[in-house]
């Protein structure tokens, strides 16, 4: 065991900078993933077979390919196709696309968990499909998707560590660099773990609170 307090404390400011990158990646790709997933979920339940089919294709693709492969493909593959994106953009893209696929399935399940009678009642009052979705179905589905969405947020936050493979100085990458530079593993990595925990713990609390508040009756 090579833990040294001095090195641990010395690492913290550097790790904090990495944690900021991790937090940015998480929040930005989560928001994009939410938009993608909501559109995807609506597409999944669409009666238009082309739209529904596209959504199935997207979900199958993103869930079937490991995130690390998506990252590598976008980071090393796109330039050979003449598309140059920064590592940060690639990270956001891969995380958001993958997250969006999982959110798509969460939103689909949420919509389908609402009794069909709700849509029928809304339509019988003259509401268009879109208005019925917006005013009647989605607000009810939202309560049911909140617990799985907070779970997804935690998963996403941890998955951001994979971007350390594409030269993005996130939390994990900073830890790895300190480890190499100082030839010491335990001191920086105690800090890395601590930072991840500090970020995931509040989300776990939110998750528990949401689950108890919106327990399906």
């Amino acid at each position, binding site marked *: 065991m090579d833990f040294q307090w001095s090195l641990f404390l010395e690492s913290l400011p550097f790790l904090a900078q990495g944690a900021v990158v991790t937090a940015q990646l998480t929040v930005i790709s989560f928001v994009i993933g939410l938009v993608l997933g909501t559109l995807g979920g609506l597409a999944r339940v669409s009666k238009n077979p082309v739209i529904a089919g596209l959504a199935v294709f997207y979900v199958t693709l993103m869930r079937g390919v490991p995130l690390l492969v998506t990252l590598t493909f976008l980071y090393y593959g796109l330039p050979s196709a003449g598309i140059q994106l920064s590592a940060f953009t690639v990270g956001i893209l891969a995380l958001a696309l993958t997250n969006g696929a999982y959110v798509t399935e969460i939103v689909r399940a949420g919509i389908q968990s609402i009794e069909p*009678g709700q849509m029928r*009642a809304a*339509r019988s009052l*003259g*509401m268009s499909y879109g*208005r019925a979705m917006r*005013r*009647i179905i989605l607000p009810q589905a939202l*309560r049911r998707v909140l617990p799985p969405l907070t779970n997804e947020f935690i998963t996403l936050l941890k998955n951001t560590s994979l971007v350390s493979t594409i030269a993005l100085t996130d939390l994990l990458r900073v830890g790895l660099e300190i480890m190499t530079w100082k030839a010491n593993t335990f001191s920086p990595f105690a800090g890395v773990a601590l930072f991840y925990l500090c970020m995931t713990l509040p989300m776990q609390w939110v998750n528990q609170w949401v689950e108890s508040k919106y327990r399906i009756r």
Partner: protein
Amino acid sequence: MHAGTDGGIPMVEIKALHKSFGELKVLQGVDLAVAPGEVVVIIGPSGSGKSTLLNCINLLESFEAGTVRVAGEWIGYMPGSGGARVKQPENHINRMRTHIGMVFQQFNLFPHMTALENIIEAPIQVLDLPRDKAVARAEALLAKVGLSAKAGAYPGELSGGQQQRVAIARSLAMEPNLMLFDEVTSALDPELVGEVLAVLRQLASDGMTMLLVTHEMGFARDVADRVVFMDGGVIVEQGAPAEIFGNPRNDRTRAFLRRLQTH
């Protein structure tokens, strides 16, 4: 538009209606006309197509052949040249549905909204009624169904009978010309049936055009202008309640009514 109740135009006019679910032929040529202000009760065994018939009238279910008109307007499809059917645009049926109220066996109130919010939702969203007007309308309707005290209650806080009365008020808030009721008392505890039937009686005496599917034969006898017996996707017999209940001519009607009595 306010679909006309004047002249000789029937409120509902169904001709040669055919509807299948896959292989299953559910409606096999239904003809039915309902006059403005008429109260028509549909009875028949389970699976005979009663709900499906109601659902075709506001196009919650599409149909393969035949025509449906409400207040003279085509529902879903209109006959084109050479026997072809022309599908009506989506906004047409949305508009027509605002004139056709529907109440369901399972109430289907919106659980995330209070009783009042349930009632004002469609008038505000669909009819563009100003909020204060919609609220005034909703309060009057809640008073009519005896639930003024429950305006702020969520559906989950109401009994089945109260929920169903709110659902009726929600439909009435659109000021429909026609109301469809599909077994609206079947999901209720027996002691709650009466309060909903009382609202229906009131509506009938107000002159609302009503088409009801029900197993409440006593109610049908009292309130119906006409009773329609369906079996196997067709109308087998229809007539005044006294005729149908007192002196049914068709064997299937007789068998159905006899089975009801033994229950």
